[in-house]
Each structure stands twice: as C-alpha cells, then as structure tokens.
C-alpha cells in the first residue's frame, strides 16, 4: 500500500472520480487531504434497498457528543427568569411531579448566570463560557421530551428511538444507509469517556438487527487506541499478509459450504478492515501531527480538558479521512462516584466538573471545523438522555443542592450543515419543567438529522421479524423550522 512518505500522491483516476463525486463542496477538503497524502482510500457502499440520497443532502458526516446522564436545561441553554423569581418557593402544579427518586424539594434558580451571546442573542449560561463564544453557530432545541427518566432505556431511546434494547443506533443506520467514504477506517467510530463506558457499555453502539458490520468500533482517545491491532510479538510483514490471505481463502471455502451467514461475513470483512486499519490507525491517532495552535484550541495538554479535547481532535481527524459517524461520550455509567452528568447531590460540583471537561474542546472543535470549511457539510450534535428538574431533589421544604432526572423538558444542541444558526426553537413552561411549545420527541430529532443527511426517515428501512423497521418507528416529523 502507498504511504504518504514514499509516494507523493498526484491525482490518480480514483481520486479524480472522488473529486467529481463530491463536487466543489468537497474540493477544499480534497485538496487538504491530497496535500497530506491521505487520498488513497476507496468508498464503501451502503446496503439499503432504497439507497439515499432521497433528496439533496446538506450534511455528509456527523459528530455526536452524547452526554451520559441528564444535562440541566435551566442551568445551560433554557433561560428562565421566572425560575429566578420563584427560587425557594414550591412548584405550583395540579399534579405531583413524577421524578426518579420521588423527592420534590423547592424550586432552585439557575446556578450559572445567563447572558445573550453573539449577534444572534442566543441565551447561554456561564456553565459553557467557550460554547457561548460560538453561540452564533448553535441551534438549540429547548422543547425536547423523552419517554423515560431511567438512564439505560433513556440512552437507548436517544440513540435508537426505542426504550428497549435490540434496535440499531443512529450510527449503525447511517452506516447501513450511506456507507463510508473510506475503506481504511470504520464507518461508525465510538470514542468513550476515558473514565469508563456509559451504562450498558457496548450495547450503546449496537447494530441491533442490521448486518453486524454496521456496529460501532471503539477507538480510545488515550492509551492504546485499539487493542490487539498489531501482534503481541512482532511478526514479519510478509507472514502477516500471507496469513490473512490464507485465512480469507479458508473462510471463503467455509462460507461456500454453508451458504450466506451474516456473522461469518461480518467477521471476514472485519479482518479486511483490520488489515487496512493497521496502516490507517497509527496515522489518524497521531495527534502530534497537529500544530500547537490546534492543540491549544482543543485544550490538549491542559486539565481538565485534555481527555475530551483529544477525543474531539481525533474525531475531526477521522471525519477528514472519510469516517461517516463519530460518537463521543461525555461521562460513563451512573452510580457512585459520579463520573457523568448526574447532579443528584450537588449540581454546582457535578455540572461544574463535567462542563469544564468538554466546554472548550467542543467550542474548539466547532471553530476548527468552521475554519477548515468542514462545518458546511458536517453536522455536530450534543445531546443528553433527558434534562433535570427545576426543583431540587430534597425534602419538600428545602432548597437542596441537587436536581433529579426530568424527562418532560430538556435542551439539545445542533450545529453545522443546513441549520438555522443562533436559533432557539421551542419552549418549556415558565420554570423550565415541561416542554410546552413545539414539543420535540426523539423521533422528530432523528427524522431531522436524517433529513439533513439526505435521507427520508420513512424510506430508510430494514425488514426484520415481519416489519419494515425504521429509526423513527412509525413516528417522527422533520422539524422544518430548524432548516436553513
């Protein structure tokens, strides 16, 4: 295989086709990659019956930042002046709030001050001072609601549309529908939090009933990126390639004797991909190749931003090399000690710690994507499982320090291709408890994300157990008001 060092790349036939395919939009990226000698990969086709694009795509690739736990909307993107006035009062409601731990304390005002930011005047609190600087890039949905306030099923719903497990996640649907722009890296990459996996672990990047090759591949941002990608004891390159060749022949013969079998095929493909990844992974994960200015922008080499900053920079490098979907987790599983967005006991401590890890890296990522021209056809998503209650998790006559889970109203962020920027869409009630105006379910969110990628959510289907399954089940409406 060619490497950048010993074969300066000219525009060969394959590169020319790829250039023509991506048109002028991809020209800037193409020239960057060509300069770096990276254009040697071939695209991998998707396998949907009714292949996208179903309409003109605005976005070609996605970074999804998944905050494990629930991010408090009233402390971040959902400005509620009324809550400030009602601080220390009881919630006035004709229903008893249904919360996870059953304790309903007094209302608590936002712990971080809100300001209007940028030219758009978007409200962002001081919890995210760096994101506040790029407020004009952001599109906020303030009227999200979920069907559960239990972490594990809520994470499933955030990623698959369903509360039960066994369904494919968004990244798998995109891999299935759109394929990849490179055959040297996985289509769907997951970068877990360095402190641990989110609740349920690898089930959160499951292909469900889609062919097994569409599951997410974990690449770590710290330490060894992928286990066992090279032999534990060094082996001659010629033996390595001959071994894979023999293995492929034996597996092919085995498959021919048995007929098509998804698991066997996926395993064969995984060896082909792994061989290419031996070349591609050391290069893509080499963050030292980036300038000091870039490192500073993402907060590398600084605490507490180093770990998540590395993840964000790694994500950008993968997208540049043709990876379709990168999912970054902020936070691990629920439980004690808290390593995610789960401020039951102390919001200032919990959200303060978690936000400081990711605020600068995400803002740096957005700035970097913008300056490289990539934000024009890249979609960045920042979501959490649900929100948090405007009242505290404490005895009824106390203003506690923590907030409980809130499935009835929360905020998510989008940025990039095809979106109206600096927009806040939808609204919660006056204290920020329940979404009341332009309510958005995960199905609507998913339908909109697919729409931006050129996919009609009703046409991306897979026949399973007698049903043509969709990411959006039998629901979902594209939120046209978000689209530029």
């Amino acid at each position, binding site marked *: 295989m060619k490497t950048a060092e010993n074969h300066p790349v000219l525009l060969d036939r394959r590169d020319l086709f790829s250039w023509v395919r991506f048109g002028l939009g991809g020209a800037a990226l193409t020239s960057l990659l060509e300069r770096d000698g990276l254009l040697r990969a071939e695209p991998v086709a998707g396998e949907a019956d009714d292949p996208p694009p179903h309409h003109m795509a605005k976005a070609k690739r996605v970074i999804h930042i998944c905050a494990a736990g629930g991010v408090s909307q009233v402390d971040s993107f959902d400005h509620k002046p009324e809550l400030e006035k009602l601080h220390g009062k009881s919630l006035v409601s004709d229903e008893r709030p249904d919360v996870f731990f059953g304790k309903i304390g007094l209302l608590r005002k936002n712990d971080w001050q809100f300001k209007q930011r940028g030219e758009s005047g978007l409200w962002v609190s001081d919890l995210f001072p760096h994101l506040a600087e790029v407020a004009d890039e952001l599109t906020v949905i303030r009227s999200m609601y979920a069907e559960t306030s239990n972490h594990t099923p809520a994470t499933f719903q955030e990623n698959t549309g369903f509360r039960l497990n066994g369904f494919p996640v968004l990244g798998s649907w995109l891999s299935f529908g759109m394929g990849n722009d490179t055959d040297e890296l996985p289509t769907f990459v997951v970068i877990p939090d360095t402190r641990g996996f989110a609740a349920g672990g690898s089930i959160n990047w499951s292909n469900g009933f889609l062919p097994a090759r569409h599951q997410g591949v974990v690449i770590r941002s710290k330490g060894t990126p992928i286990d*066992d990608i090279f032999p*534990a004891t060094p082996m*001659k390159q010629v*033996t390595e390639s001959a*071994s894979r060749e023999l*293995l492929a022949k034996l*597996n092919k*013969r085995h498959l021919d004797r048995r007929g098509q079998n998804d698991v066997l095929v996926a395993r064969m493909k995984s060896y082909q991909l792994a061989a290419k990844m031996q070349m591609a992974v050391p290069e893509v994960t080499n963050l030292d190749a980036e300038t000091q200015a870039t490192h500073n922008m993402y907060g590398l080499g600084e605490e507490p931003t180093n770990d998540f900053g590395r993840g964000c920079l790694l994500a950008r490098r993968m997208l540049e090399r043709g990876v379709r979907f990168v999912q970054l987790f902020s936070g691990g599983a629920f439980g004690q000690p808290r390593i995610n967005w789960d401020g039951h006991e102390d919001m200032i401590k919990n959200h303060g710690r978690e936000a400081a890890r990711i605020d600068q890296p995400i803002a740096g990522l957005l700035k970097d994507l913008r300056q490289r021209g990539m934000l024009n056809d890249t979609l960045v998503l920042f979501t959490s499982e649900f929100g948090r209650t405007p009242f505290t998790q404490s005895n009824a006559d106390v203003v506690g320090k923590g907030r409980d889970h809130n499935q009835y109203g929360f905020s998510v962020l989008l940025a990039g291709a095809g979106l109206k920027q600096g927009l806040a869409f939808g609204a919660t009630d006056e204290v920020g408890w329940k979404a009341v105006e332009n309510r958005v379910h995960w199905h609507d969110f998913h339908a909109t994300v697919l729409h931006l990628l050129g996919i009609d959510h009703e046409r991306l289907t897979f026949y399973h157990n007698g049903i043509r399954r969709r990411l959006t089940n039998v629901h979902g409406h594209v939120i046209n008001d978000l689209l530029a």
Partner: protein
Amino acid sequence: MNNSFVLRTAERLASRVQQESGGDPSRQVDRAFALAFSRKPDGDELQWATQFMHDHGLTALCRVLLNSNEFLYVD
C-alpha cells in the same frame, strides 16, 4: 489474532502437531486440521496450507487455523 494468548496457543498447538506427526509436512497439515476442525483438509486446502507452512512455519499456520470461522463457530 494478535492477542498474546492467541499467539501462545498457536505455539502450543504447533508443538503438539510436531510431536504427534513428526516432520512430514502433509502429515502435519492433516493433524493440524484434525485437531482444529475434526476433519481432513480437502485437496486445495492441503496444498494452500503446505505451501504456507513451507514459507512461514507451522506456528503461523496454527495461528491462522485458530482464527478461522470454522474453528470459532460451532455449526
């Protein structure tokens, strides 16, 4: 395929095959297939495996067999 356990196991399998079938290459391939798959190699497989073993050694062959779909999946 690259994990140290797999590589150690391939070495152990190779020394067992060596011990039980002596130095004859085609008997070694027969024995390795018998231990890994409980069957004899067909004509092509015998030829591929013998050539591969000649070039890269018995341990490398055992590593390939241990990583094959036939070894890893029960019908």
